[in-house]
């Protein structure tokens, strides 16, 4: 075995840095799923009747559905009756300020380097922190409220702006959409809601950190972002989860709606527990993310850096309905050890002169499997639609796999679709070159991988880009050969 390989293995064998469990009182419903549980969740959240009805319809739909098995991932069957569908940190009363938040909870954020305090204010980031399904703190609300921006937990939005939620919920990802989306629709406990009024440019990055904590608690967030005409918002989603032996199911739904001339930029850094080096444990991440460019000249841009989870099944997509609308997808997906990722995007061109760009960078290390799956569909009426796709795979070592499944469906002859794909390995000569300039093999690998991901990282907001680079370095510890 060469020194490099040994080095890579050492790196790969590094323990997950964020594996700790917060000891906090948890208010949870009994395990399992039936209509009573759903009624209980809805009641606990003090929801209106329409919401309960919607949940029940979703549940009935879900019961008729089968778990999809087409993704290029393998995992033991999930027992959906052995999951706790709702848990929230117990709160004695409604919180007025951060001082009243459970200090244990705040310490957890500290460990993760997520200061929920003045620091965020100084950096201009408003945080809506979701801890095991229920929002516990929200900052910057006043400032945002001045502009008419609504940024709150989903539960709060249901209480305070039910008409808005009712108008848009499920209009991009209907409760019938797919197995996991239906499940989410039935049981989702919380998430974020954002509404940017007409002509308002959101002055700061909106940011939510999700964190799965209670053992055996499935996490089902729901996020809904609506950008009204001529508005702009940049939204950041980032997460880490503590170390657990049992697999944790995660099935989130994110819906984005951009009206005329509006723009939504959605960035994700995902670092959930990937399982240990034997492939034990880790999060199952089955997410449905979709945006609708509903308005003329609207734009939705997804940027994701995926390094965590044992299994990732995720296709942030854009429905390009409005004429001249733009969809973008920039992705870095890194898998190590026994991680499996099947991720990509769908760009559905419906309007005229619609444009989409896909840049996907897969990195496989260890014994992991990394698949890109994408669909570019040009509908009949999408005159002059254009798409450019670039799907690159980087292999570190010789025990991992990279797969690309691009689907292209064109029904309009005036459109133009381009697809480029490459697969490469880090050359020993590149590492030696870096070594010769004084860099250790570990630094060399990080540098080469970061260079490879450049096109995606530059789409991330500045502070997120730095975080992403660090995360990549942590996740790669113990790879390359």
């Amino acid at each position, binding site marked *: 075995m*060469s*020194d*490099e390989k040994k080095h890579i293995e050492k790196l790969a064998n590094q323990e997950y840095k964020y594996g700790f469990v917060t000891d906090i009182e948890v208010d949870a419903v009994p395990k399992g799923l039936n209509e009573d549980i759903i009624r209980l969740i809805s009641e606990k959240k003090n929801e209106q009747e329409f919401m309960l009805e919607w949940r029940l319809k979703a549940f009935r739909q879900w019961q008729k559905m089968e778990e999809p098995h087409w993704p290029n991932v393998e995992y033991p069957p999930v027992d959906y009756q052995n999951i706790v569908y709702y848990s929230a940190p117990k709160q004695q009363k409604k919180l007025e300020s951060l001082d009243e938040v459970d200090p244990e909870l705040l310490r957890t954020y500290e460990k993760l380097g997520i200061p929920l305090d003045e620091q965020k204010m100084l950096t201009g980031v408003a945080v809506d922190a979701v801890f095991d399904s229920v929002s516990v703190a929200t900052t910057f609300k006043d400032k945002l409220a001045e502009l008419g921006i609504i940024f709150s937990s989903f539960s709060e939005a249901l209480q305070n702006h039910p008409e808005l939620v009712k108008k848009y919920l499920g209009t991009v990802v209907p409760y019938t959409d797919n197995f996991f989306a239906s499940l989410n629709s039935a049981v989702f406990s919380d998430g974020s809601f954002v509404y940017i009024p007409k002509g308002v440019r959101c002055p700061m990055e909106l940011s939510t950190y999700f964190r799965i904590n209670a053992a055996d608690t499935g996490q089902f967030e729901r996020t809904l972002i609506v950008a009204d005409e001529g508005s702009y918002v940049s939204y950041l989603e980032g997460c880490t989860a503590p170390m657990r032996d049992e697999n944790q199911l995660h099935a989130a739904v994110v819906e984005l709606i951009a009206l005329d001339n509006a723009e939504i930029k959605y960035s994700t850094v995902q670092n959930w527990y990937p399982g240990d080096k034997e492939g034990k444990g880790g999060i199952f991440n089955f997410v449905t993310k979709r945006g609708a460019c509903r308005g003329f000249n609207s734009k939705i841009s997804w940027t994701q850096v995926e390094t965590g989870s044992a299994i990732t099944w995720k296709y942030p997509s854009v429905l390009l309905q409005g004429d001249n609308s733009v969809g973008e997808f920039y992705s870095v997906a890194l898998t190590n050890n026994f991680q499996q990722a099947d991720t990509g995007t769908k760009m559905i061109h419906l309007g005229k002169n619609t444009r989409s760009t896909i840049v996907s960078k897969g990195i496989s290390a260890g014994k992991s499997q990394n698949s890109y799956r994408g669909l570019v569909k040009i509908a009949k009426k999408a005159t002059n639609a254009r798409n450019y796709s670039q799907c690159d795979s980087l292999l570190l070592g010789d025990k991992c796999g990279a797969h690309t499944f691009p689907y292209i469906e064109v029904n309009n002859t005036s459109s133009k679709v381009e697809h480029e794909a490459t697969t490469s390995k880090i*050359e*020993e*000569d*590149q590492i*030696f*070159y*870096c*070594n*010769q*300039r*004084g*860099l*250790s*093999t570990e*630094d060399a690998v990080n*540098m*080469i991988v*970061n*260079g*490879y*991901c*450049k*096109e995606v990282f530059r789409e991330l907001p500045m502070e997120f880009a730095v975080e992403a680079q660090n995360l990549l370095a942590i996740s790669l510890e113990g790879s390359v050969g």
Partner: protein
Amino acid sequence: MLEIKNLHVSVEGNEILKGIDLTINPGEVHAIMGPNGSGKSTLALVLAGKEGYEVTEGSVLYKGKDLLEMAPEERACEGVFLAFQYPVEIPGISNTYFLKSGLNAKRKYQGLEQMDAIDFLQLVKQKAKLVEIDEKLLKRPVNEGFSGGEKKRNEIFQMAILDPDLGILDETDSGLDIDALRIVANGVNKLKGPEKSFLVITHYQRLLNYIVPDIVHVLSEGRIIRSGDKNLALELEEKGYDWLKKEAEQVA
């Protein structure tokens, strides 16, 4: 500075170097010449610590330390620099960022403070002038899309930034036109100093018109068959290598 004794090196079981003895003192410039396949690049790469080059016999002392025991990055941090014959590309990483990381790795090794972006930029401007390299190249990803000449010039630029004690130039002159050759040579000459040594590997005598060596060695079939002053290079240019080879065979 460098003391090579009876160095034998094999690559994939084939012995390439068959007993090299070579001593370079501080401030000296040595040139190694020789026909294709004589082992010139092998010598350069084994000194830099490339994997797959197995030392079967002999020793190399660098500043009194066992060079062969050191990892490649350690050698670099100790002041050994190799200007590659075929510099590789590193997509997405700017030349300046790459070099700053290298320089700071070296400074960390030496127990020095990290150089900040402003100081580094000044150093870059100064050294870019020295080796007459276009600053636009420095913002581009490492060697990506560089012409052959630009790559070689970039190697010399990197050498200027990292300021090594032992600079090894592996056929830096190949593929250079006469102007580029002059610029590269000037760069090296400006880096020379009483504590700096150079090992210049070349195929042709013409580089040695610009970088005047103290000693010229002729490498053939893994052995140094002749050493002399700069006139040896001129003699080789005129007569080729064959007469030396024949002579060597007769001695053997």
